[in-house]
């Protein structure tokens, strides 16, 4: 394997061995603390334009398998790992991580002191990086000149509606960069799903006469998406049950008057206890966020805080006071990560049923 480098905006260069695609890429460097689930992670569209540093040192151990895709065409900019196992003899698949990354033109670099990198990133704030062949001045110039798009959702979300038919409740999913775990959870509950582009209007949604609407996860900042989507949310939430996750949650908050704060460091992991306020118990879920709803900004006459992260105090869930509309910041589909919040999909189903009376 070729010697390659991970270089960072701050001028540091880390030599390692390249794997996956030989492409030179740039992106925001973030870290993921999950123990398992590298395939789900690398295929999650929230990592669009990002280079992911994995805390778990041994990556690639189970190859690539059929039921762990979170998108068909992953758009992350790279994987940084300590140790890669290029195994394709796994019991669940014949495709290795290395081959998979080649297919999707995503570079990886192994042999990196990822623990050091994470210890550095946890205090460094947002930082850009590149995976390059040569760490010379030119490479750094290129990196510094790179402007990352703020049109991430447009890049990864569907431009056209498509169905995921079944025989149960009619659910419209608004796609901001949807992870498949959400569709799997709806499928398991027999929902007849129509996925709409994020630019859909409230009328577009309501024309389908759905029992409920789900605002999906997605990459980037919700502040870049404009006011139209917030209008859509406000109109739809008054009519039908609404469930929002991740980026969808952030938009739901914005639509109801709350504000967002950019976190000093993005958090991607599943080890934080999250308090479910109504029952005062603790759950765990995969979290992946660069923004959080500002607690102070929540209008208590419109929204109720339903979940809170006990480690950093961030708001993890909201509910509308007047409508069956609720949202969570964490990934309730549990792909990857703990499953105990999947129950929220049942809550969504019951909200739709309850409304029918």
């Amino acid at each position: 394997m070729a010697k390659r480098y991970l270089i960072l905006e701050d001028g540091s260069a880390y030599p390692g061995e390249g794997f996956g695609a030989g492409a030179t890429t740039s992106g925001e460097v973030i870290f993921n603390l999950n123990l398992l689930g590298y395939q789900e992670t690398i295929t999650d569209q929230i990592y669009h334009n990002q280079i992911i540093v994995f805390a778990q040192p041994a990556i690639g151990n189970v190859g690539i398998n059929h039921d762990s895709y979170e998108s068909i065409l992953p758009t992350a900019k790279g994987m940084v790992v300590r140790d890669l196992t290029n195994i394709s003899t796994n019991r669940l698949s014949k495709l290795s991580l290395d081959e998979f990354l080649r297919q999707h033109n995503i570079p990886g670099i192994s042999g990196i002191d990822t623990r050091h990198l994470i210890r550095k990133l946890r205090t460094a704030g947002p930082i850009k990086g590149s995976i390059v062949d040569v760490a010379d001045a030119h490479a750094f110039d290129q990196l510094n000149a790179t402007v990352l798009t703020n049109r991430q959702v447009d890049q990864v979300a569907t431009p056209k509606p498509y169905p995921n038919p079944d025989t149960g409740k009619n659910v419209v999913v608004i796609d901001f960069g949807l992870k498949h775990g959400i569709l799997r959870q709806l499928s398991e509950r027999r929902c007849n799903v129509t996925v709409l582009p994020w630019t859909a209007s409230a009328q577009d949604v309501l024309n389908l006469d759905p029992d409920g609407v789900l605002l999906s996860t997605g990459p980037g900042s919700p502040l870049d998406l404009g006011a139209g989507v917030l209008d859509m949310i406000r109109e739809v939430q008054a009519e039908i049950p609404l469930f929002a996750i991740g980026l969808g949650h952030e938009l739901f908050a914005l639509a109801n008057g709350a504000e967002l704060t950019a976190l000093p460091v993005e958090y991607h992991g599943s080890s934080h206890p999250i308090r479910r306020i109504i029952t005062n118990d603790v759950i765990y879920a995969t979290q992946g966020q660069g923004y959080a709803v500002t607690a102070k900004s929540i209008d208590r006459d419109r929204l109720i805080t339903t979940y809170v992260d006990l480690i950093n105090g961030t708001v993890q869930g909201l509910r509308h006071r007047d409508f069956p509309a609720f949202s969570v910041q964490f990934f309730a589909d549990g792909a990857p990560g703990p499953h105990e919040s999947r129950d929220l999909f049942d809550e969504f189903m019951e909200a739709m049923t309850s409304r029918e009376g």
Partner: protein
Amino acid sequence: MPKVVVDAMAMQRALTRITYEIIERNKGVDDLVILGIKTRGVYLAQRIASRLQQLENVTVPVGALDVTPYRDDIDHDSQAAEPEVSAADIDFSVAGKKVILVDDVLYTGRTIRAAMSAIMALGRPKSINLAVLVDRGHRELPIRADFVGKNIPSSQREKIKVSVTEIDDRDAVEIIKASANQAN
């Protein structure tokens, strides 16, 4: 064999949803009081109140309505006879309040009717809403629940058994098929 139709998680979820729906319907928790019908309705009422406390940091008064048992049966609402309901365990005024009446199973509606009379005898509430964990149909009076945990269409030959951890060591709703030797 009893069949579990609502497990512990689903029961928790139903109570959570009912709590949110109460907030939605009443635009908050001001002037709210919760009255549970003994025995299990009281525990459910307390759970709803504790959820409201968690969410809104407001203590909503909880009272108990006692149903005079007329037969030793699994659910008290399964007979056309008019049960007697007394409101002895309520140490607050209901006058001008929004009352949430809570019971485990809604069946003929006769218990609810009696409960409403008992409440009215205490004072004139602003409104009475009914929350039930299970609505099993077969109403004999024009009564409907405002908040329903789960609709369980059932045959009259079946019994619905609600268990709550407070006294039954677990949370569950079960349907018991009435067989010859089970029917009493």
